[in-house]
């Protein structure tokens, strides 16, 4: 759990274990691109780290001693070593021992009590980061799938091309037909106008001739009536009228 916080906080500080003076040498001699390229996504991090007992001794040590000494072997070894160091004063008990005991007890108490909560918090932060990345990935996948659907629909629409062109051809044919008929009508009207003109001309001419002839005949008739003929006709008319008036009475 501490390692989770360390991992988040300062990985760079932990990675720079080689002394900084020789960093240049390290970069110059590190072989590049020697392993085959990993084109697939990186393998995920292992879930749990290597097993460690009591937070200090890796499990491999216990497994190493198990065939020869059984389960209690390493503990006997540890106890013997501690007693040996204390009795021969290879480890000297002084003020630092007291300080170490106090610090260690507080540390262990703190870890035991608050460890799971801190671990859950760090896990939650990691989950949020992962969820965000996943959301981005899912969104882009959904966007691409929608684009695929659109594309399929467009392909389906392409099949209706023939109907579209038929309709367009019909439209154009109708336009042409309408235009042709319009022009036909215009031609008909023009021709009719000209023919009407000719007909009207002929009628007019005949009428004028008739009128002129009638007028001329009337004029010559009127001229031919002499004054004596006029008197005779008037006297005849009066006699006729008298006769009529007598028969009427």
């Amino acid at each position, binding site marked *: 759990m501490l*390692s989770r916080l360390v*991992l988040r906080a300062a990985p760079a500080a932990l990675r720079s274990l080689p002394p900084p003076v020789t960093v240049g040498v390290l970069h110059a001699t590190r072989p590049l691109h020697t392993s085959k390229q990993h084109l697939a996504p990186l393998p995920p991090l*292992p879930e749990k*780290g*290597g097993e*460690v007992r009591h937070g200090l001794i890796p499990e491999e040590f216990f497994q190493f001693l198990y065939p020869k000494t059984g389960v209690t072997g390493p503990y006997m070894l540890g106890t013997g070593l501690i007693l040996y160091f204390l009795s021969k004063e290879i480890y*000297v*008990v002084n003020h630092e021992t007291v300080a170490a005991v106090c610090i260690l007890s507080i540390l262990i108490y703190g870890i035991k009590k608050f*460890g799971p909560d801190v671990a859950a918090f760090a896990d939650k932060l990691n989950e949020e980061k992962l969820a965000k990345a996943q959301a981005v990935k899912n969104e882009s996948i959904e966007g691409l799938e929608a684009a695929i659907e659109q594309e399929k629909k467009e392909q389906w629409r392409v099949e209706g091309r023939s109907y579209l062109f038929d309709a367009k051809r019909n439209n154009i044919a109708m336009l042409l037909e309408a235009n042709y008929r319009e022009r036909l009508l215009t031609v008909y009207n023009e021709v009719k106008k000209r023919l009407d003109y000719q007909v009207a001309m002929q009628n007019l001419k005949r009428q004028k001739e008739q009128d002129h002839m009638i007028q001329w005949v009337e004029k010559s008739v009127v001229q031919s009536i002499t004054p004596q003929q006029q008197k005779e006709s008037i006297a005849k008319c009066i006699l006729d009228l008298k006769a009529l008036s007598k028969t009427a009475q």
Partner: protein
Amino acid sequence: GPLLERRLMDVRLRELPLWVTTRDFSPQALLRGAQRAWDSYYNKYINVKKGGPAGVSMLLAGYCFLSYAWNYQHIKRYRWRKYH
């Protein structure tokens, strides 16, 4: 296999001095070895999804042990008894 390519744990005890002479002790090789050791430790105990106190506590314990060892000559003067 040939002696040169075997790792330390696969070398028999009687071949150990010969094996040590075949190793490359130039500074670059030492640095590479140190980097590889750190990388294997890091990837085993720290670079995991659910680590624990173990990864860092082993480093701290190692630090305490090393500093005690380097100061041993000075601490030896503060023994409680002269004869053990």
